[in-house]
């Protein structure tokens, strides 16, 4: 994208070309920060549901004055020998394709006034509102539209859209426990039906295990924010907090990883088990709500097989109930995992970030990875024990009540990890409704 922006500046300045980007990601503010960082001076449009139908990005298309595709997938490295002579300098006025009718599209302003209960009306209103809804924001009168989209089903695309809507509500002030897990489950179901939909795969991988990622997703955000501020501009605020998985890099060691040779389940010296005797007073959720979402590796849907089958990224959100607050002078909340046989984790203890001043009632989130131990090389051992699918864990935290009293509490929970079917070598040809690519030597 930045390459095309640089290469086409002169044409755009001369009024001979316009650039438009269509962004295929969940959070529009992140793309807006990217555009600010790269100093894009053209519009980026938001298509989180994938209405435009793309299965991969980036895809670049050169379109003539009548809306006809003239140069698909141009190569920026061949700008002078391809893009200029075959598109920018061509006169397409006499071409007969200009009379070809346009296929059906999606014009938001034509749908936004449609009555409740129509899918396109709900999509239009959710897209228009979702641009500005943040973690403390409300969907207000558009909640019903969001809920209508959460109820979509009947096709992989509809199921994916339902997941997008669930995640939108999760990122708002109206989040409901289970929204994030519902988003992940919807996306996973859609991807299993259409394994070649790489935009859907990326949506899961964004929050998935480190080794299932083709690259870190949002590790550029901190640097971009600093650079933009140095220019004297106010950086676009990133509304939904970045999770560890969104900046994780598969080529780097997991921070806090268990030292090599250390016994499985052994705690790092600096964090001892907070309640080994189980005597701490339990919070049954009356003071702090605990939400879990488990993002599994996408290899069970075909494609990447780099990640161990059982590897998962677990996202835990602690949400203070009305009237309660995090103290700013206490140790941060902590999760303690009871790691059973055949499982591995970087450590049994994971700390939440410290609450920030002014945000004492805001939810805190932490994420960490779990994986089954790699199986031994050689033929499969059918008598081998299967790892447990439920892991016990607990969180400990200090929380202050309405009268100012602060208490230390423990909340028990369990993490369920289902084991997806072993990866296959890709879907059978045509299974997801599209022809498989011919072998490279098919025309020889």
């Amino acid at each position, binding site marked *: 994208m930045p390459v095309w922006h640089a290469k086409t500046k002169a044409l755009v300045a001369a009024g001979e070309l316009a650039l438009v980007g*269509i962004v295929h990601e969940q959070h529009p503010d992140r793309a807006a920060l990217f555009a600010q960082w790269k100093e894009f001076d053209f519009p980026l449009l*938001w298509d989180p549901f994938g209405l435009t139908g793309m299965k991969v990005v980036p*895809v670049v298309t050169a379109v003539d004055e*009548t809306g006809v595709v003239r140069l*698909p997938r141009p190569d920026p490295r061949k700008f002078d020998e391809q893009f200029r002579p075959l598109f920018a300098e061509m006169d397409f006025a006499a071409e007969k394709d200009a009379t070809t009718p346009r296929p059906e599209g999606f014009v*938001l*302003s034509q749908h936004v006034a449609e009555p409740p209960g129509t899918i396109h009306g709900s999509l239009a209103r959710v897209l228009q509102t979702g641009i500005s809804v943040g973690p403390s924001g409300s969907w207000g009168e558009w909640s019903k539209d969001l809920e209508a989209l959460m*109820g979509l089903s009947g*096709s992989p695309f509809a199921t994916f*859209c339902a997941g997008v809507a669930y995640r939108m509500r999760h990122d708002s002030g109206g989040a409901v426990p289970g929204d994030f897990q519902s988003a992940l489950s919807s996306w996973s179901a859609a991807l299993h039906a259409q394994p070649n939909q790489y935009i859907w795969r990326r949506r899961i991988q964004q929050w998935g295990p480190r080794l299932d990622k083709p690259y870190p997703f949002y590790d550029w955000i901190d640097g971009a924010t600093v650079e933009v501020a140095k220019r004297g501009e106010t950086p676009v605020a990133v509304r939904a907090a970045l999770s560890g998985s969104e900046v994780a890099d598969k080529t780097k060691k997991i921070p806090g990883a268990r030292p090599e040779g250390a016994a499985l389940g052994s705690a790092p010296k600096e964090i001892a088990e907070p309640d080994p005797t189980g005597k701490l007073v339990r919070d049954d959720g009356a003071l702090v709500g605990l939400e879990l979402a488990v993002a599994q590796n996408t290899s069970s849907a075909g494609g990447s097989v780099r990640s161990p089958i059982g590897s998962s990224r677990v996202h835990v959100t602690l949400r203070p109930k009305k009237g309660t607050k995090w103290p700013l002078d206490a140790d941060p909340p902590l999760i303690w995992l009871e790691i059973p046989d055949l499982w591995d984790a970087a450590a049994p203890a994971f700390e939440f970030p410290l609450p920030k001043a002014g945000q004492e009632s805001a939810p805190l989130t932490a994420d960490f990875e779990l994986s089954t131990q790699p199986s031994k090389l050689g033929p499969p051992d059918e008598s081998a024990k299967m790892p447990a699918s439920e892991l016990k864990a607990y969180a400990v935290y200090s929380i202050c009540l309405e009268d100012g009293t602060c208490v230390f509490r423990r909340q028990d929970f369990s993490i369920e990890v289902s084991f997806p079917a072993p990866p296959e070598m890709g879907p059978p040809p045509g299974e997801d409704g599209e022809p498989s690519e011919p072998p490279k030597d098919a025309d020889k």
Partner: protein
Amino acid sequence: MLFSLISLAAIAVTAAPQKTLAPMDPAVWTTPGARIPDVELPRVDGGGLVRLGDYEGKKLLLIHFASW
């Protein structure tokens, strides 16, 4: 009786919320000679709506991408 059943069926069909949705064919964006669909979506920076149809009369470089 038959009329009543047909009427009930018609009511059921019209009352049921629309539950199906289809994306655009991705080939329309990359097939030489194809006209691209008219799409209007919000700008990621909150700067309002932009409609591709409004670019008629100008050559357009359209880039589908993600910041990741």
